[in-house]
């Protein structure tokens, strides 16, 4: 694959779109919009996976694409929407770092990701380099979202978006063995996490299961 080829361009485009959606996630102020943006990102990821399956002639990746679409494009967003509705959560995103600064930090992280990948010699194929830079950016933005947003839902979505970055990296590498298994396993982890959020009915933040009981146990300060 080289520049100018359709395979490459489309893969690159889809990867870029996933990254763009990460920025959209950071930009949104309302929970509902965040969930929708995440669904969009999941769908784009599924598309990227499907395209890679086609390009690499790896039928297993179709399964990954299907799972990604099913879980992240449809089911998890629906579950989160329901949760927001039923628990009557705040509809706005509370930020620890404002939207503007988050965006700037995000751009900085993308720059960092590129700088970190840059030293890779030309021996590694360009696609892989670009691909890894994109995926790394998505991962970092996901983490950024986790630590700069106060709402539980936003934080979970940050984690899920981080995981999207992983899958993006995995599908981009030609011949990656076990890619389906790994992506599935990662998905299981994420689903378990979402299930945890929903079961524990975590309303405000991931920190808080029941704020009242914490002081005695965790702090050990008397």
């Amino acid at each position: 694959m080289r520049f100018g080829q359709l395979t490459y361009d489309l893969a690159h485009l889809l990867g870029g779109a996933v990254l763009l959606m990460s920025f959209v996630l950071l930009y949104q102020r309302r929970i509902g919009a965040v969930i929708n943006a995440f669904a969009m990102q999941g769908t784009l990821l599924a598309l990227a996976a499907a395209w890679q399956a086609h390009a690499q002639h790896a039928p297993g990746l179709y399964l990954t694409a299907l799972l990604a679409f099913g879980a992240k494009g449809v089911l998890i967003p629906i579950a989160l929407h329901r949760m927001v509705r039923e628990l009557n959560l705040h509809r706005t995103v509370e930020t620890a770092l404002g939207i503007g600064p988050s965006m700037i930090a995000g751009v900085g992280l993308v720059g960092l990701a590129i700088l970190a990948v840059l030293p890779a010699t030309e021996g590694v194929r360009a696609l892989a380099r670009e691909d890894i830079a994109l995926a790394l950016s998505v991962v970092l933005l996901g983490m950024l979202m986790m630590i700069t947003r106060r709402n539980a839902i936003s934080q979970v979505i940050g984690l899920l978006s981080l995981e999207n970055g992983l899958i993006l990296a995995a599908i981009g590498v030609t011949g990656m063995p076990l890619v389906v298994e790994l992506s599935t396993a990662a998905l299981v982890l994420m689903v378990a996490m979402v299930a945890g959020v929903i079961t524990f009915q975590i309303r405000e933040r991931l920190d808080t299961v029941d704020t009242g009981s914490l002081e005695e146990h965790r702090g050990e300060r008397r």
Partner: protein
Amino acid sequence: MPLQWVIVFFAWAGAVVLAAMPNQRHATVVNAAVSAGMFLLAVALMALPFEQHGWTRTDVLNMPFVLVSTFVGLTTAVFSAATLEQEGFDHWRSRAYHAAYQIFMGAQTLALLADNLGVMWVAIEIATLATVSMVAVHRTPAAFEAAWKFFILCGVGIALALFGTIVLYLAAQPLLTEETGLSWTALMAVAARCDPATLNLAFAFLLLGYGTKAGLVPLHSWLPDAHAEGPVPISAVLSGLLLNAAMLAVLRAKSIVGANPEAVTPGPFLLAFGLASVLLAALALWRRRDARRFFAWSSIEHMGIAAFAFGLGGPAANLAGLLHLIGHALVKSAVFFGVGRAAQLKGSQKIADIGGLVATHPALGWGLAVAILAIAGMPPFVIFASEFRLFSVAAAELPWLAITLALGMVTALAALITVLQALCFGVPTPDSGGALNGWREVASAVPVWLHLLVAVGLGIAMPLGLATMLATAAQVIG
């Protein structure tokens, strides 16, 4: 099916059986029996020639850990059988606990035996999921809190590790075939020719990812609470086994990066993490009021020491690190048995509520006292040997870092002594129930002393075969 997989699936089959067993008493026995079976299988595996086989491999590096891990698994199961009634489980939770225990043991063993880094990652993920559920099993707010923190932080950690794994493959991809891909053996073979910059990136993420699981500062925040809130046996296996598996994963990554002369030297990173862990833990130990959290912090310190040893590199320091991991697994689980049992007797795990154990419960009190001495690096236990080796190498190669490390260790030692005397000496605090009848009382103390005995044996009279294995392994890590 090769024996490696037999062990893993033996445990998982045991998990299925245990999940279906309604009678808690029977389940404890079956649990111990399954663990005994695993231990025997691990011994049998030692007898077979070491080889790579599919996704798994047996080599000098992982077999000592498999042996120790199944041994600790067995003694923990025995301790668990003796004291489980103290945890006050209903039969559902008992089922969940036992099933999770065996799922964890299977996954843990698989993580150690895995040759394929992807399989290793999956195994560690399963182990994490199993332990999260075990930490939460008491369903108190604190337990939920601890489990949740554990879950989130380690979830992110292993996500990072997966990213590292993928990048690692990317680095080696032009040189690998689909069949051998992600195999550690194959990666080691081509490591020297891989793209160094990509390798660096991979190492960074593997170190941070598995380092989170190993509890290295600043990725450690989950560890103290997770160790303190689950049932007692879980603290023992978390500290004794899971940390080792994570550290072994770091070592596997380090050996690959280390094999490439153009990539970054992995040593300084490990040194930095190790030193940070020791220093922070040494200070944090002074602020603890909860006995189990105290020893959880001590685990952070010891992982830091091991990381420091591996960071130093070279056969001598690596041997020290391996010995330290093994010694820590044995001794720290003994400490958790002791302190957990004491907490059951006193009805509280606050240090202030436990006191004078040697006067009222000599076997337990002295066992705990000796175990804490052992964890503090007193002879003739294996941790003494490993710390001796580590410091005698470090003093010559990195004197200032060695002195800084020593400063941290002295601070930690003083804290350990203070707590040892607070728990074991002085005027006994009143018991609040928690007595065990007949054989259970004995069976709850035997694991402590057994571990200490083994630790002494490894410290000053290690079987030649094992010593040779570890020495070879120390050279493999590089």
